[in-house]
């Protein structure tokens, strides 16, 4: 079958949605289909130009395509008789962010009309879709609340599970993923300062801004942790990242209220590593079960210090938590072949 993945693109920006589309394409091909990605440019500033770009998507003609899988606004407005939505997110500034007063839509009547227009177009597009899946429970709830569509959650699989076979536990806790205030790597540093001196920490990933990197470097200095912390703050080659996971003793990931299970936690579980998170980390708690697959700490330095120490207190226990994490992840059966099959149903 000829499957076209349709995604929106912010020109000159490459992110998680682009990665997901690329891996979906790869796995469609593995499943024996022809697959291509259509990336439609979308610029949401100024908001006045959003309607014409919605019309742009609507005016395109697709020929020689058997099935469309569309991911984002406004790309999913594209017309095709066999269109499945794997909704990564709607235009939130016309939905929950609008209600929260955090919108880029202009104030007053003009903004109201834009909001109405976006919602109406979404409504029509959802109604004409063959199936709608969302990438998280939060997105599902939002779609149900605002648009009245009861979608199924289809969690994105790990893109390259073969890179995460696991390995002998090393002498450090690994904290991976993007580096910023919301991901709270600084909290881990404060915890480490209060933890057993045996505990070592590796923080690695791309900082959102130079400030995010500087803040962590300053904290290491201030807390005198230079001999127990390694910072590798950059966009890591995939192999390097996987190596850090596979050789760790445990993986810590404590974003504030995340929508999904989180790639960092999913990849760590694939590698059978014990997990550390915090009680307010949202979707991550789907994989981290306290005393079973890892530790759920309160989001404060004292509590995190106890948990980080526990990793090295009893290495047999840490290992078994890791095995349990892998078993829990495996039991969710979030794999590419099944995902591709579901999307083409």
């Amino acid at each position: 079958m000829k499957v076209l993945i349709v995604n929106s693109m912010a020109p000159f920006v490459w992110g998680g949605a682009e990665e997901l589309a690329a891996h979906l394409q790869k796995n469609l091909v593995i499943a024996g289909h022809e697959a291509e990605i259509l990336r439609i440019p979308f610029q949401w500033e100024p908001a006045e130009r959003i309607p014409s770009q919605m019309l742009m998507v609507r005016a395109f003609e697709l020929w020689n395509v058997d099935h469309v899988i569309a991911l984002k606004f406004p790309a999913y407005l594209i017309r095709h008789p066999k269109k499945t939505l794997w909704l990564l997110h709607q235009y939130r500034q016309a939905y929950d962010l609008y209600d929260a007063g955090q919108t880029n839509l202009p104030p007053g009547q003009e903004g109201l009309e834009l909001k109405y227009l976006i919602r109406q177009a979404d409504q029509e597009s959802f109604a004409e879709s063959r199936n709608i899946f969302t990438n998280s429970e939060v997105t599902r709830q939002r779609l149900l609340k605002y648009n009245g569509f009861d979608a199924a959650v289809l969690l994105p699989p790990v893109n390259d599970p073969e890179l995460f076979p696991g390995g002998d536990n090393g002498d450090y806790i690994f904290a991976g993923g993007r580096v910023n205030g919301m991901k709270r790597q600084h909290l881990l540093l404060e915890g480490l300062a209060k933890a057993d001196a045996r505990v070592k920490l590796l923080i690695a990933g791309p900082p959102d801004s130079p400030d995010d990197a500087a803040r962590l470097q300053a904290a290491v200095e201030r807390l005198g942790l230079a001999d127990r912390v390694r910072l590798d703050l950059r966009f890591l080659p995939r192999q390097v990242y996987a190596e850090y996971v596979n050789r760790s003793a445990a993986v810590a990931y404590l974003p504030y209220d995340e929508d999904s299970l989180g790639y960092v936690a999913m990849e760590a579980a694939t590698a059978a590593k014990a997990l550390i998170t915090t009680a307010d980390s949202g979707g991550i708690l789907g994989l981290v079960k306290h005393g079973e697959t890892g530790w759920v700490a309160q989001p404060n330095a004292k509590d995190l210090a106890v948990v980080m120490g526990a990793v090295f207190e009893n290495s047999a226990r840490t290992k078994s938590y890791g095995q349990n994490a892998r078993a829990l992840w495996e039991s969710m059966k979030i794999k590419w072949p099944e995902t591709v099959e579901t999307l083409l149903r």
Partner: protein
Amino acid sequence: MKIALCSSLVPFINGGARNIVEWLKSLLEEHGHQVEIVYLPEVDSPELLFQQMMAFRWVDLEMADRIICFRPEAHLIPHRHKILWFIHHIRAFYDLWDSPYRGFPDDLKHRGIRDALRRVDGAGLREAKAIFTNSRVVSDRLKHFNQIDSEILYPPVFQSERFRCAGFNDEIVCICRVEHHKRQHLLVEALQHTQTPVRLRLSGASAGADYPRDLSQRISELGLTDRVSLDNRWISEEEKVAQLAHCLAAAYLPLDEDSYGYPSVEASHASKPILTTSDSGGVLELVQDGMNGYITEPSPEALADAMDRLYLDRTKTEAMGISARDRLAELNISWSHVLQRLLA
């Protein structure tokens, strides 16, 4: 600089116009630019044309410092610094209007669409800071139909150093899409008139099943199955390099094509002469009869005669191969020239 390369496509159909965009991207990146490729779908159906043209008009690429547009109707995308590397019009409404390839009637409705399209194209073209074309033929058409001047910028092939010559066997290769307008059937018909045991190898994918099926049937009818091989798929780059390295010559005889065509440039890089016909359009900008190949009348008999000459006079064949290579430098076909002009 942030550069967006804009073109149109039909999903799942590969072709030369896509390659040039991707090659240009890697070269621009090597030179330190940020590059985004924007491929947008387009179906050239008269009824659906204007709605799709409007879509191109609504594309917002303001964040790019400049855009370079290729296939139609990408030239309609608005931008303050728009450069065109114009490859062709929607030809049914231009040079193919008076041909069997128009595909719809010459009536009031279609004439109306034609005239409106030409007006919109003219306006979109005039917005550009610079207009380059891929051939003399296309530059002439821009002048003739749109009254617009342009500069020819011949598209080079990617990593041309891959191509080599490793001798001359008895086979004339034709490596391009297997389609009626590429006229593989003429080559097959010609083979029955040859006096020598020269062979033919046709490689390439097709959009539909009819033409390759008819071709294959004709090969059987003429009893040529042992002298013609038809490989109806998109062969790999490695296979292409190998075929060109060993072949006797390369045939490329599209009907009145816009550009000189990558098949003929690739053959030239492999120091192989090119067999083409007097009605092949842009190919004739590259090929000079008796110098770097043969140009014959588009008839089986005339082609057969040239095929025999390629087979029999090996000294001449090899000399024409060397000249084919030299001809590329003569026409300034190189990426350094392309980058210099597009970024000027």
